[in-house]
């Protein structure tokens, strides 16, 4: 017992073991038992969990002082009886900001639930769901048939899908570019393999020079999505690939950063990454049709041609804290975070 004391100080959030300001004797013995339980829990868990709890404790400390001034009263035991729960979230890089936003806001709703939000890519998230190394998978595309089957054979559970937000892929250009709108057909000839358009004067004589293309790396969900929606099909009925000679960036913000520094640039990235140094091109589904500027209403209604749904997936019907978390995400409170992070809420 004596050797565990420093460990408890290091790893457990103070609001879980009670604070020293609670004077009652009965509480103290209660606390002792809880404390022993907690230490055992910590010792039997992997170090990553310990680490996440440490981080949560450190950040929690600061919050507690400001939001919980009446802690010295008799309310502490209520908190004491709750066990810390960890929800592991992994998946789409596009959704990392959003997932972190949710996890931070949720700590104020339920202080004993620690949501560990991680990126890595949609494909990585599905793999983690199969290996049971995550509870929820963020996905910026719909799950593929073989991924459903693989999850079924490995875990024995059907995947459950939740649409949680919309995302619109915006086409970014430099502010000095005189072009303001572009059609899907033109985008196809610019981006697809063997496409006919390589320089700006083929789109509009007002601007001259080769188009510098900036996209995402070939294992990101954004890349998959853009290829699927822009490149179309070859004459043989197969999906057309993206052309070579595209600068493939490792992050959505990096695409925007590069476009802002390159006058002849054209790039695609999530709608949430716009900065004052770049501009959106309005997109029309066909040349001659009215072009639509990316925005929340048009993304939801499907008027904007390159909008997509964002999903959460779980293996099997979610239960307990995971279910409560997903319900909260779908509630108006969770959807407020969606809007705050630059995505499009469901309603």
């Amino acid at each position: 017992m004596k050797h565990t004391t420093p460990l408890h100080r290091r790893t457990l959030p103070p609001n879980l073991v009670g604070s020293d300001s609670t004077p009652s004797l009965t509480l103290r013995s209660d606390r002792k038992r809880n404390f022993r339980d907690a230490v055992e829990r910590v010792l039997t868990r992997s170090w990553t969990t310990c680490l996440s709890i440490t981080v949560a404790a450190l950040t929690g400390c600061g919050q507690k002082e400001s939001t919980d001034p009446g802690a010295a009263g008799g309310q502490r035991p209520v908190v004491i009886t709750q066990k810390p729960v960890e929800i592991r979230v992994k998946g789409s890089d596009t959704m990392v900001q959003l997932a972190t936003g949710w996890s931070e806001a949720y700590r104020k709703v339920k202080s004993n639930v620690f949501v560990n939000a991680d990126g890595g890519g949609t494909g990585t998230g599905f793999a983690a769901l199969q290996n049971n190394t995550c509870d929820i998978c963020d996905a910026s595309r719909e799950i593929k048939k073989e991924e459903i089957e693989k999850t079924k054979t490995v875990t024995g559970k059907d995947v459950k899908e939740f649409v949680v937000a919309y995302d619109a892929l915006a086409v970014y250009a430099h502010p000095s570019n005189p072009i303001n709108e572009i059609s899907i057909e033109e985008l196809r000839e610019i981006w697809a393999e063997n496409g006919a358009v390589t320089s700006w004067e083929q789109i509009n004589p007002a601007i001259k020079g080769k188009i510098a293309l900036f996209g995402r790396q070939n294992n990101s969900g954004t890349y998959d999505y853009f290829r699927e929606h822009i490149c179309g099909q070859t004459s043989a009925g197969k999906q057309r690939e993206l052309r070579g000679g595209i600068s493939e960036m490792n992050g959505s913000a990096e695409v925007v950063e590069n476009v802002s520094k390159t006058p002849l640039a054209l790039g695609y990235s999530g709608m949430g990454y716009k900065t004052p140094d770049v501009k959106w091109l309005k997109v029309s589904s066909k040349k001659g049709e009215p072009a639509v500027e990316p925005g929340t209403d048009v993304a939801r209604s499907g008027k904007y041609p390159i909008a997509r749904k964002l999903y959460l997936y779980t293996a099997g019907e979610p239960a307990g804290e995971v279910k409560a978390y997903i319900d909260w995400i779908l509630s108006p409170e969770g959807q407020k975070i969606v809007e705050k992070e630059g995505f499009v809420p469901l309603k």
Partner: protein
Amino acid sequence: MAEFQKVRARKKFRFLDALEKPIEVLIRLCGWSSIIGIAAIFLFIFKEAAPMVPKLDWIHFFTSARWIPNPAPGNPPSFGAWALLVGTFATTFIALIIAVPVGLGAAVYISEFARGKGKETLKIVIELLAAIPSIVWGFIGLMVLGPIIKGIFTAAPGSAWGKIMVAFHLATAETGASQGTNLLTGGVILALMSVPLIVSLSEDALRAVPDSFREAALALGANTWETVRRVLFPAARNGLLAACMLGMGRAIGETMAVLLATGHNNRIPEALTDPVRTMTATIAAEMGETVHGSEHYRVLFILGIVLFIATCGINVASDLIVKGVKKANQS
């Protein structure tokens, strides 16, 4: 008292005597460890790549620039690494063209011309330069050097500078460089990263030349420059070549800096300011998200083997060159 000291000395001697064998073994092990390490690394890389070696279309791998490892559903993947090879060697070549003269020049200045405080300051600053992490160099390339190079290599279409750029393959279009992160930016960043290595190693090599050589040259009436060119360079030849080779090794194997500074763009560069993509950056960007054991994963290891063989080949070649020069001098 004197006798006591003698006994102690003898005792100490005996103690070391007993340790001699294990120490010898230990030192031998240290000597062999690098060989063991290299063999183990090669075995590991080869083991991961092996299942793909008979399946890979090698001609396509070395001649096609079509790198599509994650094709759309229903399409076959395409592993054409020609553009990655060209990108790697082009950036390294540009880096060496800049780094070797600058590095050797700086080494000669520090070892033969600089005196006193200036010499010490220079040495310290150059060593500081070597301590900058590569990701920082990458950011400098992306945020600072890229825009500068973009500014220099930009012209109005039809202007003289635009025509010169196209004529001398400085840019593919008359408007100049399409983007700031390109071959030249990557090359300059790599040069800046390998210069400190080249300088400190060459300076060591020059300092290792006995002073009697310098004195003899001066006595024959040579000035400092003649001494450096006719006496010191030939005498320190091996060390200088080794310094350049290590600089090249640093440049060819660098990953994070080129990932940020070259544009990471899979194409054959036609001009100095075209964006490129290197093998190392490709491995770094794609390894993290490939499925363990998939074709894509194995091909990334094959890229690693190609890189490994290339650097080994360069080192062996430089060794042979050094030996060849030695022989020619002796006969």
